[in-house]
């Protein structure tokens, strides 16, 4: 659906009141609206039903290993950056039944479980997250085999992007060339300014939603306000990652001493992979009743940081944290390029913020680059 091509400067202005109607418009079209809301001391993505569910007047302060909600001095609805959740939660659910087996008189009968119909409208997708969705699209959909659950959800999803107007200390989308401005991949894009939003539609579906809302052509001042707000995010980004020849850098430094160094800090707890919007590893578990005659296969998120992730023939291929961290970072930044034609990293900074001990991949990259062999 979101085959966004730039539709030029078709910018319109929505008052906040007009924007508030988007929930009924979306719901009337059968969309389940998912967006930012406050829960458990963070801005998470969950089902939302009205503007009242949005984190009005809140922002997030982020640093390696630290995230805190903070009051803003205004009433902005999207005045935060990114939280612990990502949209993969909804496109690639953490748990899903993929097949069922039943023992009958004639033997086992198998049935692949058809994905449940789901039609999501994602509200508040950031530029780095649009990039992450593009990355996962390349993982799950180009074939020959496709992931039916992802594809069903992706095909039916409406993406309402929101341009960042500020950056967290952990952001580095500019290094990964994924943001902060939303340039493609969305149906609608918003920029929050005083009293309302600059909005533009990039697809017919987006235009249809927009037309159901009361909007005006954006004035020059309003456009400038939007431009200024977006520039503020660019200006705030401090963190950098040098991606020059990064594929070869990593694949020729598989024995770099830095891997031992990071392994002494890394907890191998899986948090970075879980919050990463592109990590896609999963495993399948057998769930059976006591008779063993009805068995479901449940796919769930897994992580290359798990000891038994690489289990083979009675042993684990990657049996220490050094090899597991190396696998993750090398895959994310280097071998991903061989596999899917792009980096697996979109510069959202989640893995930095949500690492309990604050390991910062940009520092690790710099260290490896610093005395590369």
């Amino acid at each position: 659906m979101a085959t966004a091509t730039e539709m030029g400067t078709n910018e319109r202005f929505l008052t906040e009141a007009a924007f508030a109607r988007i929930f009924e418009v979306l719901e009337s079209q059968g969309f389940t609206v998912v967006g930012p809301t406050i829960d458990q001391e963070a801005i998470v993505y969950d089902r939302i039903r009205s503007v009242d569910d949005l984190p009005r007047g809140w922002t997030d302060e982020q640093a390696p290993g630290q995230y805190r909600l903070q009051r803003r001095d205004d009433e902005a609805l999207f005045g935060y950056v990114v939280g612990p959740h990502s949209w993969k939660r909804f496109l690639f659910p953490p748990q899903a039944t993929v097949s069922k087996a039943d023992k009958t008189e004639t033997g086992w009968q198998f049935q692949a479980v058809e994905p449940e119909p789901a039609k999501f409208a994602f509200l508040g997708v950031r530029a780095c997250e649009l990039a992450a969705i593009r990355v996962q699209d390349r993982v799950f959909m180009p074939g020959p085999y496709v992931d039916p659950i992802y594809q069903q959800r992706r095909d039916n999803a409406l993406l309402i992007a929101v341009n960042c107007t500020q950056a967290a200390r952990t952001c580095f989308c500019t290094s990964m060339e994924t943001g902060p401005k939303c340039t493609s991949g969305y149906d609608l894009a918003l920029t929050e300014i005083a009293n309302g939003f600059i909005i533009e539609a990039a697809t017919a579906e987006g235009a249809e939603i927009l037309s159901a809302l009361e909007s005006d052509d954006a004035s020059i001042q309003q456009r400038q306000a939007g431009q200024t707000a977006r520039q503020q995010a660019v200006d705030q980004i401090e963190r950098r990652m040098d991606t020059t020849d990064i594929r070869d850098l990593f694949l020729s430094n598989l024995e770099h001493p830095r891997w031992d160094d990071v392994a002494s800090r890394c907890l191998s707890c899986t948090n970075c992979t879980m919050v990463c919007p592109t990590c896609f590893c999963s495993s399948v578990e057998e769930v059976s009743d006591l008779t063993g005659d009805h068995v479901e296969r449940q796919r769930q998120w897994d992580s290359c940081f798990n000891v038994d992730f690489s289990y083979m023939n009675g042993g684990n291929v990657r049996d220490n944290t050094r090899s597991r961290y190396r696998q993750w970072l090398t895959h994310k930044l280097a071998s991903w390029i061989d596999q899917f034609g792009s980096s697996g990293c979109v510069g959202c900074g989640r893995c930095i913020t949500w690492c309990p001990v604050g390991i910062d991949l940009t520092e690790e990259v710099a260290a490896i680059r610093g005395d590369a062999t």
Partner: protein
Amino acid sequence: MSSKPTLGVFKFASCDGCQLSLLAAEDHLLGVAAEVEIAYFLEATSHIQPGPYDIALIEGSIITSHDAERIQQIRRDSKFLITIGACATSGGIQALRNWADCNEFVRSVYATPDYISTLATSTAIADHVQVDFELRGCPINQYQLIEVIQSVLAGRRPRTPVHSVCLDCKRRGTVCVMVAQGTTCLGPVTQAGCGAICPTYNRGCYGCYGPAAQPNLVSLTGQFESSGVPREQVVDSLRNFNGYAPEFRAESERLEASRESTT
């Protein structure tokens, strides 16, 4: 006479909670009873059958010399011996005595300490006999228990994950309490199995399932200390229900030793 495999449930120093997990598996209880012959399970039945037992579930730790002898007999009587819970697997909360003066402990609780016959340490079953499988948790998870019984019956390896609690938090959508609230949480080094309940209920994990596979305790306790948690509290956080599990124990003793050497 039934040819079903026999099951024995044996209790040592413990709270009863782990064997209660079997009775708490209401939906599966009658199913389990249909698959195995319950040959020894004092809490559930007055029907007592002598060994040998095909499967023995052992709850509790060893804190008396009588128990140290009793477990030997049970081992001889049992084909497949499974420890259930933190007490049996790592000595339990009562293993706190292992770092203390046990006589002083006894005196403080009992007016007539002479009547008390106890060992100075609380030790895991595996310190006394060979254990075929250890099921972690304080208490154990009833679904894992059913899985273990099922897999032993089927002759396969039980699927009980060894990964950290963090993974389960994230699958559930629980926000990290350590990062978002600065709460001390053992989740990153604790084995999953509980369903990541503590962080989901807004508090830090306190390690009911013992150390995860290859835990990096030094890094985590360093993080606790650098965020201002006093060392004494870090040591206490490791010394609870699985305090005597080797990895937790080594780290709490390391912290204590380095405190002594620096002060």
